[in-house]
């Protein structure tokens, strides 16, 4: 723990104008941690080179192992206050959170110095209870396993090999190539984006099979993945079981064609000459495009991309995403892996549907002489550069393109298919007769049907809550497309999103880099996204563990398993360091060296709570998520906003790390209310650790109930969702709490006891 602290108070940027320095210094020199603080100084410009040099000299002369910088927000001057790895730094935000956002209460004078003293004492306490983490640095396996030998997997294997990595490529089928190998051609992958081209998959296969770095396993089944990033023990069955030592995994298992049952409203299954795009592709690949009814070459082929007949029965917003709240007890009756395919996969495939229709219309022109092709679309879904391919198709007189809403597909007496459509460019209501009709093939990720990964994790073999993404292994983070809930596994290609081959190639490269990065981070004992580089990690005091399993169940990333005795078994390289386990633990046995229950609890105890709320005002603790809520508060201060002088902010890693004891202790100390400010939760969650703010809200309900039993109003503990740009709203949130809760209920009944 930091034992020799230097405490420095800056008087620049209005701080000195608003506050007298001497009493603030006295709060430390005469405080209970005075013995730990051999250096207490003030400085007019603490970020100046001279001041920084002075701090460095003090560190050297006094052997300081901690520096408390009482100045601006830690978001500012981040590069200035760094004093090497042996010296811990704590920033006390006097400028933004104290001085700039201060609002006087005329009834109670002298509040600002009290606030500043509180924050300084809190900072000193926090640092005095912080250690420098010394992570274990495990030996890691460096081999990358690529699951799936289709276009994405082949590219991923080659990219990893080019980086000098050993690769194991595991393919379920007997041959490599996946869906790309079944294609006659693909729509264009590069400039000038005008013509369908060869997929190049044969060449890729040849490159992969001849690459000494890549071990190819076909007809291979992934039996189990045990362990953690950098330390996976993988069992694959390929004519006998093999054990592999793997560092990280690229999941490129791709897609399967959607259930054709969803196409029944468009005549599939009942009309012979209605086929799917996948079936049409197979005909083109085999070299002969023929009508199923009579084997004759069609003179006209209609490609229908409007699937509203199939999807309109599906509600726009499935409420199923809330289903996650189902109690765990029911899990036994539910199927092992609930199927996630639905008619909407047809809609999600729209881009590929349109591009494939254009491509296959080209096959008609190429292979069937004078035959004509119709492409009837609701929206020609060719965003971006592929507009050029669409333009090129428009230039072919034998390809008729029209917007249309398909109303009915029926069969003619002579085997022809009649497509009825409305709102077309050819007329309001039209019927088009075609010899053959081609319907879209939905791209359904394999993970919609099967867990695929076979992870030997306590939380299950696959990715949790994929129903949010209709079975796609997507991240839900726009900025971080590869970050899923299983550290060390990076999805690429159509298992992640429906995508073109050109996209999949790029996606493979990205996923490989994330896999390499993960192995490197594991090897250095540091976290990956979003706390990349963090050296802290949760430490478990198992002697006091009651095996309640809350930490193992609640970890958003499935980092904890059970050992033989049923005790939680941490897997540090799976861990993202959010502290959700620490927040979950009722016995408080989980801690980080530099972030723990005692530390934050002690910090809260440093807040001065007057016995008389009328004379001294109330006190409210705000546990603020440091990712979004904290910067929002800074920004509010920058914009000249102010709020109640009775709140004290305590930054937390994530609301998931908030342990109920902090709230209970605060209330028993006489604090009048506790606010938790964190990220949005629900289907469009913004929580950086996926579940933190949501779990906190559930725990909050329990906390409030316990308070109720003690005669404390449940309303005194409240959680609010704040995104980083809600800086103009957050002061009002605080204000509302102060009037609707504190003014209404009056002093905490525990006050003064």
């Amino acid at each position, binding site marked *: 723990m930091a034992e020799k602290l230097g405490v420095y108070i800056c008087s620049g940027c209005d701080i000195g104008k608003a506050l007298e320095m001497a009493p603030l210094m006295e709060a430390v020199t005469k405080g209970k941690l005075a013995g730990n603080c051999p250096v207490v100084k003030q400085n007019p410009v603490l970020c100046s080179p001279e001041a920084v040099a002075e701090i460095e000299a003090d560190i050297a002369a006094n052997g300081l192992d901690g520096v408390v910088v009482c100045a601006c927000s830690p978001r500012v001057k981040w590069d200035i206050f760094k004093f090497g790895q042996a010296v811990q730094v704590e920033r006390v935000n006097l400028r933004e959170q104290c001085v700039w956002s201060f609002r006087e209460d005329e009834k109670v004078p002298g509040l600002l110095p009290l606030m500043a003293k509180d924050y300084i004492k809190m900072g000193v306490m926090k640092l005095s209870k912080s250690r420098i983490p010394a992570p274990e640095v495990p030996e890691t396996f460096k081999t990358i396993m690529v699951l799936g030998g289709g276009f994405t997997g082949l590219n991923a294997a080659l990219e990893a090999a080019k980086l000098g990595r050993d690769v194991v490529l595991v393919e379920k089928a007997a041959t490599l190539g996946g869906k790309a190998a079944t294609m006659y051609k693909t729509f264009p992958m590069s400039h000038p984006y005008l013509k369908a081209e060869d997929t190049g998959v044969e060449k890729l296969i040849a490159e992969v099979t001849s690459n000494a770095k890549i071990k190819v396993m076909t007809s291979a089944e992934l039996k189990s993945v045990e362990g953690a990033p950098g330390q996976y023990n993988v069992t694959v069955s390929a004519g006998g079981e093999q054990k592999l030592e793997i560092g990280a995994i690229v999941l490129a298992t791709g897609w399967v064609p959607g259930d054709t049952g969803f196409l029944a409203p468009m005549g599939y299954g009942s009309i012979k000459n209605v086929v799917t795009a996948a079936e049409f592709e197979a005909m083109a690949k085999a070299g002969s495009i023929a009508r199923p009814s009579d084997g004759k070459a069609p003179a006209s082929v209609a490609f229908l991309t409007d699937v509203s007949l199939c999807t309109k029965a599906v509600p726009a917003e499935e409420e199923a995403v809330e289903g996650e709240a189902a109690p765990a007890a029911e899990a036994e009756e539910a199927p092992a892996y609930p199927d996630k395919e639905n008619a909407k996969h047809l809609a999600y495939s729209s881009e590929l549907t349109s591009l494939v229709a254009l491509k296959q219309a080209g096959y008609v022109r190429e292979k069937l002489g004078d035959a004509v092709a119709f492409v009837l679309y609701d929206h020609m879904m060719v965003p971006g550069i592929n507009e050029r391919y669409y333009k090129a198709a428009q230039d072919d007189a034998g390809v008729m393109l029209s917007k249309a809403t398909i109303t009915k597909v029926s069969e003619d007496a002579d085997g022809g298919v009649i497509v009825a459509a409305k709102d077309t460019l050819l007329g309001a209501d039209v019927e088009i007769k075609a010899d053959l009709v081609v319907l879209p093939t939905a791209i359904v990720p394999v993970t919609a049907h099967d867990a695929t990964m076979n992870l030997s994790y306590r939380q299950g073999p696959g990715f949790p809550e994929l129903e949010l993404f209709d079975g796609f292994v997507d991240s839900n983070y726009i900025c971080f*497309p590869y970050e899923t809930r299983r550290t060390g596994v990076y999805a690429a290609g159509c298992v992640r999103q429906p995508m073109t081959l050109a996209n999949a190639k790029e996606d493979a490269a990205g996923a490989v880099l994330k896999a390499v990065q993960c192995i490197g981070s594991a090897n250095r004992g540091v976290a990956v996204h979003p706390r990349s580089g963090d050296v802290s990690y949760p430490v478990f005091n198992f002697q006091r563990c009651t095996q309640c399993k809350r930490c193992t169940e609640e970890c958003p990333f499935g980092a904890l398993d059970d050992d033989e005795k049923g005790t939680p078994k941490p897997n540090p390289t799976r861990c993202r360091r959010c502290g959700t386990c620490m927040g979950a633990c009722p016995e408080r046995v989980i801690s980080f060296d530099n972030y723990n229950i005692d530390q934050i609890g002690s910090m809260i105890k440093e807040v001065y709570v007057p016995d008389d709320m009328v004379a001294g005002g109330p006190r409210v603790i705000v546990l603020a998520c440091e990712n979004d809520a904290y910067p929002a508060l800074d920004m509010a201060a920058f914009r000249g906003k102010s709020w109640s002088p009775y709140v004290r902010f305590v930054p937390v890693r994530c609301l998931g790390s908030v342990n109920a004891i902090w709230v209970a202790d605060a209330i028993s100390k006489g604090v009048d209310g506790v606010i938790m400010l964190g990220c949005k939760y629900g289907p469009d969650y913004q929580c950086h650790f996926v579940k933190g703010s949501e779990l906190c809200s559930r725990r909050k309900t329990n906390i409030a109930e316990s308070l109720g039993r003690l005669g404390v109003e449940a309303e005194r503990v409240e959680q609010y969702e704040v995104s980083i740009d809600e800086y103009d709203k957050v002061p009002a949130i605080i204000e509302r709490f102060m009037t609707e809760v504190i003014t209404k209920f009056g002093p905490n009944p525990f006050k003064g006891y």
Partner: protein
Amino acid sequence: MSNNSILVVGGGFAGITAALEAAEVGHEVYIVETNPYLGGRVAQLNQYFPKLCPPSCGLEIQFQRIKNNPKVKFFTMSEVVSVTGGPGAFDVKIKERPRFVNANCTMCGECEKAATTTVKSEFEFGLAERKVAYSTHLFAFPQRYVVDAAACAPGELDKIKDACPYNAIETADAEKTFDLSVGSIVWATGWKPYDMAKLDNLGGGKLANVVSNMQFERLAAPNGPTNGKIERPSDGKAPKRIAFVQCAGSRDENHLNYCSYICCMASLKHVTYIREKLPEAQVVVYYIDLRTPGRYDNFMQKVAADDKLTLVKGKVAKIVECECKSPILTVEDAVTGIKGEERFDMVVLATGMQPSCAGSKLPVELPVDDDGFIIGGAEKGVFAAGCAKLPLDVMKTAQTGTGAALKAIQNVVGR
């Protein structure tokens, strides 16, 4: 001896992503950015589709990663002047424009208070004025003011200097050039909004209440010129009827010979801004196709269910304005063929994205297409990412940034 470090040209989302992903596997990375801040176009957006989350959230994470990683170095207000050498051993000359503010700056804002001259804000697309001593926006990173010395009135620069309590104003600051030696280059110079003044028939840049989609982002942003209030530029009134003109410049051989990828989703997102802020406003979106690929379909369905929104497949041929400055649109419905005139209080042109480099000579020889997108370079050790390469959304931009980082690493590791 080959050089392991990587130069990333452009500090927007693609560039930051490429830089960090490479740095986090141990490579020294330099970001060169022409703006005074990192973050590029996304820093100007109010929210991302489809989650409607603020871009500053993701940028905050990226900036934290930069702050915590000594392998990432960045230069703002800087541009690449020339590139010599080749893969594994590039010599790059960088020009850094003067900021006139040194590292002493604490963001206290005294310089801004002292400055008196104002000019149009580039960051706000001309919708607001800024002082000559300014910070572009609330979340600007690095957190350091800029002084636009060239725009200062006589004596103003000295007044600004005197106002600074921290001796942060460098009145003698001047352009500098310096060299970097790198092994690979990621080209991520991004995009610019297509100049709406070129859309003559649509009144772009001429009619007061015809704004671009990027201007609309600023009007909706809480840190924008109106603190997030959607109002008509001409009179500050809340519009009751708003039209969106899709493909304003895009999908048009006379302007941009491609689809700009994001505008359909962006306009649908703008409808959600309107609904939140102006619950009663009527909205019409004129489109050719609504391009909402993949799982964006859910967002489209949700927005389309708005009963005050009308989606019209139709072409807007012309926009003029009436005496009260309300735009009048001449529209042809593509399905019915009916032509008509419609009056709105405000019109948003869904202008497309054009590669930033379009029309200017690159300091390194790279193959580009007719529209200015980079279509090669890998063989030369230069890897394009983001919208310098293709029109893309943010998610795909992050994907290409990560992919380009891998290629850049392969290029230096394999040597």
